[in-house]
């Protein structure tokens, strides 16, 4: 169903970044991270061009730590990177403006936060094969300022108006109920709490695999729309009874304590105006027709 928005008032502005390279820490060049059991592991993690993980794939089972599907970009200047990370919205169009894949179009599918601060963009694999690290990618950023006149308590974060229109939703008794594949209880929310909700990511924590399965969170796919219970994301993410946030799975699972699939938060309300209903089809790869 459609819900009235102020989309006609939203300003669409360019932001840009370069295709990122994976980074490891400096001397003594210790490459390992520790998993939640204290074991050292060495797996690919965020950044770079990822050829074989795409939005729509499983968020679990990869030999990787919070891997960004497809292509990740960042700007080398910290303030400009913040502009990129805040203004880019899930569903925005991206265009490659340098290199062998110049002119190819992609779609923003997520963002990452503290320690990486990148924007994640889907391109088909044949395009990925032509992209080089440091190629320039422009995002037509549109969505910051989005609001719903009939639901003044709902705040948008990082969501394109067109994608909002396409997401499954219903209105019942004055509550906007977004279609979601799963609902995350507050004790399963980890890294990203207390950090900015205008960009970055908020992670489901997956250390306790039995609890993860019991909550129906172990089958998530990249691109799934999920609800976060008792979560207020208006200004940073935090616990508040009765609040709700809606997120889109942007990154894969990972073995570090406090981490798991990363979510880009796109909607929030401190009151009961925002709700959810089960909708197994709520995956943005399917909704936007993203193909590997």
């Amino acid at each position: 169903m459609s819900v009235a928005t102020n989309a006609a008032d939203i300003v669409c502005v360019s932001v840009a970044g370069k295709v990122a390279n994976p980074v490891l820490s400096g001397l003594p060049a210790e490459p390992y991270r520790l998993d939640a059991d204290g074991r050292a592991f060495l797996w690919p993690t965020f950044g770079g061009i990822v050829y074989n993980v795409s939005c729509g794939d499983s968020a679990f089972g990869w030999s990787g730590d919070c891997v960004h599907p497809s292509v990740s970009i960042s700007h080398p200047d910290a303030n400009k990177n913040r502009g990129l990370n805040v203004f880019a919205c899930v569903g925005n169009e991206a265009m490659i403006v340098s290199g062998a894949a110049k002119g190819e179009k992609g779609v923003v599918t997520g963002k990452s936060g503290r320690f990486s601060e990148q924007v994640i963009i889907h391109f088909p694999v044949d395009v990925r094969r032509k992209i080089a690290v440091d190629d320039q990618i422009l995002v037509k950023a549109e969505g910051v300022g989005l609001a719903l006149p009939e639901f003044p308590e709902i705040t948008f974060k990082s969501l394109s108006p067109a994608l909002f229109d396409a997401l499954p939703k219903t209105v019942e008794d004055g509550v906007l109920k977004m279609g979601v594949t799963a609902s995350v209880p507050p004790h399963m929310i980890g890294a990203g709490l207390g950090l900015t909700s205008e960009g970055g990511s908020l992670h489901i924590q997956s250390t306790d695999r039995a609890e993860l399965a019991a909550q129906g969170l172990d089958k998530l796919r990249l691109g799934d729309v999920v609800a976060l219970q008792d979560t207020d994301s208006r200004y940073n993410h935090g616990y508040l009874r009765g609040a709700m946030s809606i997120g889109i799975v942007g990154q894969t699972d990972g073995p570090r304590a406090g981490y798991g699939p990363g979510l880009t938060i796109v909607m929030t309300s401190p009151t009961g105006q925002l709700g959810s209903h089960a909708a197994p089809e709520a995956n943005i790869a399917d909704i936007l027709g993203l193909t590997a």
Partner: protein
Amino acid sequence: MTGSEGHSLATNESTLVEMAVSAIVTTPAVRPGQYIPHPDGTGAVLPGMYGITYNVRCGDRAFGWAGDHVEPGVSIDDDGHSGRHHALHYLNCIGNDAMVTSGMAAGATGTVIGEHARILVQFDAEAHALMAPGDRVQVMTRGQGLTLRDYSGVALKKMSPRLFHAMGITEADGRLQVKAAVELPIRIMGSGAELNSEYVDQDLMSGDRALMAELGIDKMRLGDIIAIRHADHHWGRSYREGAVSICICIHGDSIMTGHGPGILTLMTARAGEIDFTLDPSANLADLLKLGA
């Protein structure tokens, strides 16, 4: 002390290495546009972090200050980027001795009472009145590597032998019995889930003010010993059913969503090796007789 099953609280403390790490007294740093948001977005400018805090000491209330993340005592850090910052963070332990080594208060001795982005040390009020930003303070670090001979499942983090012995820990039914002033529900543990458990703290999320009052959390004092069920703090901080972590409150409340008083890890166990009883007097200021 010998337990009912022949266990004991024997430690390996005779093997610990005591080592000096030096820092300087910090001075508050303010970024351009220093406003921080309340949960409803209202901006505020508040003191609390860095510097010498003259009128807030360990043992005082954690809530209700016209401040944000108030750090009791003196906040010290490295004055360069030489790696001393991390040496301080990873080697200091709560309850370690500190000594002023330059300036008008040279020779004064104090105690490590917490670790935020800086190390928090407390001296007597007369010494605080004489200290100035830039004065050198040295921590005689001792405690990293501390283990319990008969409780291999119990990890000690940033625990000085002095504090361990002062906590009044007993044994019953093969488990450690710890006295804690406050129990926190895992679902309100927030900012800091992304950090190592030896590095800084994890804030409790105080944004649900009604819940703070309902559970009496708003009576928390700086220095209170804190217990959290289902919190595994071995390598990072994550939800794990049945785990118990024992922590200490090291800084004051915050207005920001996802933040609140800082909770620093002291002990953690997964398999029931730690249990606790509530005792409002379980506070660092009393346990170490730090004085008002």
